[in-house]
């Protein structure tokens, strides 16, 4: 059975929460963390679209290799 699902706001929020939790942003930028989180969350879908373009061309896909950065 083939089925496709759109990226819902709920799904994106879940991805964002997991992504953010696995970074060291909170530890490294404690003072500005809440503002950073707010901005990243608001722009998350666009950031992912940019990341997917460059990681998709990278030999390290699904990651982005240093050569593609």
């Amino acid at each position, binding site marked *: 059975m083939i089925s496709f699902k759109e990226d819902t706001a709920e799904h994106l929020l879940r991805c964002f929460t997991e992504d953010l939790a696995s970074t060291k942003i909170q530890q490294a930028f404690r003072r*500005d963390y809440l503002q950073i989180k707010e901005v990243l969350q608001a722009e998350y879908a666009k950031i992912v679209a940019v990341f997917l373009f460059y990681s998709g061309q990278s030999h390290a896909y699904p990651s982005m290799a240093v050569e593609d950065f």
Partner: protein
Amino acid sequence: MFTQEAGLISKAGPTNELSLMKCFTETIVSSINYRQTGEKSVSRSEFLEVLVRIAAVMQATSGKSNLGETLKQLLRETVFKKAKKTARSEFLSMLVNDAKSIELLQKNCTALWQAYNYFTHDKKNKVTLEECVALARHCQLDV
């Protein structure tokens, strides 16, 4: 590639090649516990961190006190304007709402899986672009 196309590299400014590479390396080092290999690459979540680190470099030299604002400015005025991006959500949306495409894929599901399985095995779960092109040409498609 990304930093060049997004217009982030400025020879005289704060975001020169060296400082951008420092942001990249610091992110890799900060998440060393999660890394399985020594490969120099960043995952999607690490990419978020790299962007924040670049904004921090810009903020340090601009004298602005708000890192959130600098990050917003970096994204909206530089990265999103110049960097390339996929139209994944638009494509998905089109696919979800295109009953004919779904029907066609459904109908040819077995053959598609066979083609996928032909190119993949236990240790290789992706079909490369070159393999897709070879398959399309084998099917006499003009690619």
